[in-house]
């Protein structure tokens, strides 16, 4: 077979090319030809096809994502914003923190263990590529119905994959979510987040500059796994008629990644690296074109020098392979030997595969012949941009009119009691410790808080006690009812969760999971969610620093609920002041902060008791969220509260049960005068939290709330070993514990 060189391509314009099989549309293929002034070579076609995929190019989402920049609030905290591998935030004392959430949805459905494992691997490499030591991971997960047989295939595999990879890397898993809903049956959402810490001066960027600098590929050898993962797997909907996509899923080796982390950090510490990029989606195509596109010059790569696991791979396959645990560094010539020495110390394969040139072309050679000659910007950054049509679906009005007000409510204490037990034992509200106990929380010795706390918290400076907190939240049900406010509710919940632990919210990352952008209704949900999130972040003063878009989460015509997952990062000056959720001290007073309205549409109660979704989600008041956060943070700093729990899914009663069980103490609760017991216990009004206040601090605390205008209601006292809602019902902790803790092991154990 003739090698399809640049020269050969120029002389054979009429050759049929497999652009459709590689996932390109006709007009995109024409555009490539126009850019090059000839047909692309096979290798060029491979590069454009993966880099112009939805997953890599954000071609459908770009026009909307711009709002995160345009509406970004003024902040001094942001050191690196959207567009790099991950955003970087200043947290004080010379420390910077980088964090990001990404999706690995499609591969995790096809092959749950490897899909989830390599999701962790990918996000961790993004963090290392910024110059940071990874210090924690979180995993927001969504599955189909808990009792569906396929969920028993997907969930245990995903959990084992996350544990198998993350535990072996030595990263504490400190948070995340597990949600069940039949809308995710054929499209589980496996999102993965990571946090890294560095000194300000250690920030690294993905750019290749300085002609003559060497391009070093290091880490695992390149194999045939994950070829075209970004284009043909992550950027299309599933369809039974097509052949199995398993070859497009990558296979992970966490041991190799652990070596890669240590070796990269050692090279950073010796200041050997000019620019760095990890190899994730689109592999070498992405790393070479992005490094060159971001830098000042061009790049020349000898593809023959890439170490291979399989010597029969074609140049196209080498460029498209998504083999894991690889990175690409740009190093000055005189530092190459030292760089290679460090790699050897860690038994990491490292090879110079090219160099930065003073031109502006990315040129790739195979057996001495030029097979790629492109302007790297056209591959990496100037891909197609679509203004996809979008329209509010006609069913939206009907859905919103179907309010939860029509649903039968519990009529007396006995019925309330029964529904409380049903709620806290439902798969979504039940304890997830069967899952989280498969993750290491303790490694690195800096974990202050981990699941099921409101947010995970990591100490980053043992001397001063400086720490960071991270929470991730999403509520696809709310977003389905109203994507604009649903996205804001996810932001508000995550923001509140961070504040509830005593940390000050600083910045946001997001993972936007939606159906097919080719469906105008889905595109409308997407546009609305982004508008809501951008407006919300502007109002709360927390910029979006980066994130990920996952589209095509749909099977046939059925799209998932629009599911924006929002991660909020916060900072705490001294982790000794952190607030846990557990009610641990008998006699402490319980206060409810915020306003409770009759808001049950989209609630956990409506789902668990009536299997109902309709109406409008709870009202959003971001000024109230900000005030609540300020109170929670002040109260934590000044020692006025010993426990706090945000109120979200399942309302007040869910929070009370969780805090009681965590602390092993009961509570006597009084429904405030004139309030409906059912609404008080089950409403999901936003902007609320429950706190446990030592008696000595009661006046100081309520005075502070009063002075700042935050509604505060005394609702009870920590006491005994029973949850007693006076005049309504009482349930022993042991009974609650059984209901809450036996559901998930009962299904999956």
């Amino acid at each position, binding site marked *: 077979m003739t090698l399809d060189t640049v020269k050969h391509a120029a002389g054979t314009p009429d050759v049929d090319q497999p652009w459709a099989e590689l996932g390109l549309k006709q007009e995109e293929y024409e555009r490539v030809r126009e850019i090059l002034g000839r047909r692309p070579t096979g290798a060029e076609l491979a590069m454009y096809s993966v880099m112009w995929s939805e997953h890599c190019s954000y071609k459908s989402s770009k026009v909307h994502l711009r709002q995160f920049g345009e509406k970004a609030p003024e902040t001094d905290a942001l050191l690196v914003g959207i567009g790099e591998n991950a955003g970087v935030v200043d947290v004080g004392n010379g420390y910077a923190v980088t964090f990001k959430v990404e999706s690995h949805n499609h591969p995790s459905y096809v092959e749950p263990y490897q899909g989830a494992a390599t999701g962790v691997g990918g996000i961790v490499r993004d963090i290392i590529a910024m110059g940071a030591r990874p210090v924690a991971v979180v995993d927001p997960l969504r599955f189909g119905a808990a009792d569906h047989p396929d969920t028993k295939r997907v969930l245990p595999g995903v959990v084992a994959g996350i544990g198998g990879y993350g535990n072996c890397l030595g990263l504490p898993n400190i948070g995340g979510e597990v949600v069940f809903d039949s809308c995710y049956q054929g499209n589980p959402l496996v999102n993965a987040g990571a946090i890294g810490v560095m000194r300000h001066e250690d920030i690294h960027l993905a750019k290749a500059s300085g002609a003559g600098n060497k391009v070093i590929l290091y880490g695992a050898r390149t194999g045939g796994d994950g070829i075209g993962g970004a284009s043909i797997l992550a950027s299309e909907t599933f369809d039974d008629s097509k052949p199995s996509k398993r070859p497009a899923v990558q296979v992970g080796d966490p041991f190799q990644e652990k*070596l890669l982390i240590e070796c990269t950090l050692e090279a950073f510490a010796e200041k050997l690296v000019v620019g760095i990029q990890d190899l994730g989606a689109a592999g070498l195509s992405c790393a070479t074109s992005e490094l060159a596109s971001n830098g000042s010059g061009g790049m020349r790569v000898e593809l023959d020098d890439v170490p291979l696991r399989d010597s029969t791979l074609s140049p196209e396959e080498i460029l498209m392979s998504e083999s894991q645990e690889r990175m690409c560094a740009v190093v000055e010539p005189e530092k190459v030997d030292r760089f290679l020495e460090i790699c050897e110390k860690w038994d990491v394969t490292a090879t110079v595969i090219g160099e930065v040139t003073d031109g502006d072309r990315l040129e790739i050679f195979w057996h001495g012949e030029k097979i790629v000659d492109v302007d790297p910007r056209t591959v990496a950054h100037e891909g197609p941009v679509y203004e996809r049509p979008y329209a509010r679906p006609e069913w939206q009005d009907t859905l919103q009119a179907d309010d939860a007000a029509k649903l039968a409510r519990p009529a007396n204490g006995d019925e309330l009691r029964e529904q409380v037990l049903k709620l806290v034992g439902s798969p979504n509200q039940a304890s997830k410790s069967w899952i989280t106990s498969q993750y290491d929380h*303790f*490694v*690195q*010795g800096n974990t202050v808080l981990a699941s099921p706390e409101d947010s995970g918290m990591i100490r980053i400076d043992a001397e001063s006690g400086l720490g960071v907190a991270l929470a991730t939240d999403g509520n696809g049900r709310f977003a389905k009812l109203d994507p604009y406010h649903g996205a804001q509710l996810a932001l508000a919940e995550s923001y509140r969760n961070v504040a509830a632990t005593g940390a000050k919210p600083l910045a946001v990352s997001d993972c936007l999971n939606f159906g097919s952008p080719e469906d105008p209704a889905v595109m409308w949900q997407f546009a609305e969610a982004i508008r809501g999130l951008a407006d919300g972040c502007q109002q709360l003063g927390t910029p979006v620093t980066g994130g990920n878009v996952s589209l095509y989460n749909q099977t046939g015509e059925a799209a998932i609920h629009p599911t924006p997952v929002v991660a909020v990062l916060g900072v705490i000056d001294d*982790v000794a002041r952190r607030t846990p959720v557990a009610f641990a001290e008998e006699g402490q007073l319980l206060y409810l902060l915020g306003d409770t309205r009759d808001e049950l549409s989209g609630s956990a109660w409506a789902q668990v008791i009536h299997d109902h979704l309709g109406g409008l989600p709870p009202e959003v008041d971001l000024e109230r969220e900000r005030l609540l956060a300020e109170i929670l943070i002040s109260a934590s700093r000044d020692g006025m509260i010993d426990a706090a729990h945000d109120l979200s899914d399942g309302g007040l009663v869910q929070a009370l049960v969780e805090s009681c069980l965590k602390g092993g103490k009961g509570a006597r609760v009084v429904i405030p005068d004139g309030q409906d017991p059912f609404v008080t216990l089950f409403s999901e009004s936003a902007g609320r939290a429950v706190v446990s206040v030592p008696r000595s601090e009661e006046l100081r605390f309520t005075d502070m709330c009063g002075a700042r205008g935050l509604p505060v209601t005394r609702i009870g006292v920590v006491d005994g070993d029973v949850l007693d809602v006076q005049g309504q019902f009482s349930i022993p902790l042991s009974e609650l514990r059984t209901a809450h803790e036996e559901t998930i092991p009962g299904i999956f154990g």
Partner: protein
Amino acid sequence: MTARIGVITFPGTLDDRDTQRAVRLAGAEAVPLWHKDKDLKQVDAVVLPGGFSYGDYLRAGAISRFSPVMDTVIEQAKAGMPVLGICNGFQVLTETHLLPGAMLRNNHLHFICRDQKLRVENAGTAWTADYTAGQEINIPLKNIDGRYVADERTLDELEAEGRVAFRYLDVNPNGSLRDIAGITNAAGNVVGLMPHPEHAVEPLIGTGRTDGLGFFTSILKKLVNA
């Protein structure tokens, strides 16, 4: 004066920096040791920390056992140098036969991370002198290959000689025979256990207890008073 305690890093070791911190918190000097280096840098004792050395490929601890540093560790341990193996370090010690028995996959087949209650059965070893026999402590456990097994005769010998150093209480988290969480050699200088004392040395962090600090204060006192 203080003592120098070496902490070995194998490729894939995870708890080396945590162990160094625990050693320092106890007041000793932590000396990083590298697996390719036979030189123990004149340390007075060695800790083999937890992790997944060599990815646990082949069998947990099976490849690390052949690292150059282990030749010296085995030689010195036989001469009486105190050695502590935590989790993966315990697995390495059984592979070297400094300690008897082996670790299999947990009986429930999952990785398990939990606060674990233990009873200190032998407070006479180099690493447990600051505890009292029968004392109950609570320290984190996290592993997937933690099920301690040995043949009946070995188990009977361990029991008879008081060499079961720690036993799981309340819950046997992995199916270990006779609830064994950790053991010692006959001389009491080599100790291995699956739970992680180095993760229970500071209030607020991890479990919020300091029940694990005693391992490191025990060895420090022994070395300083020697």
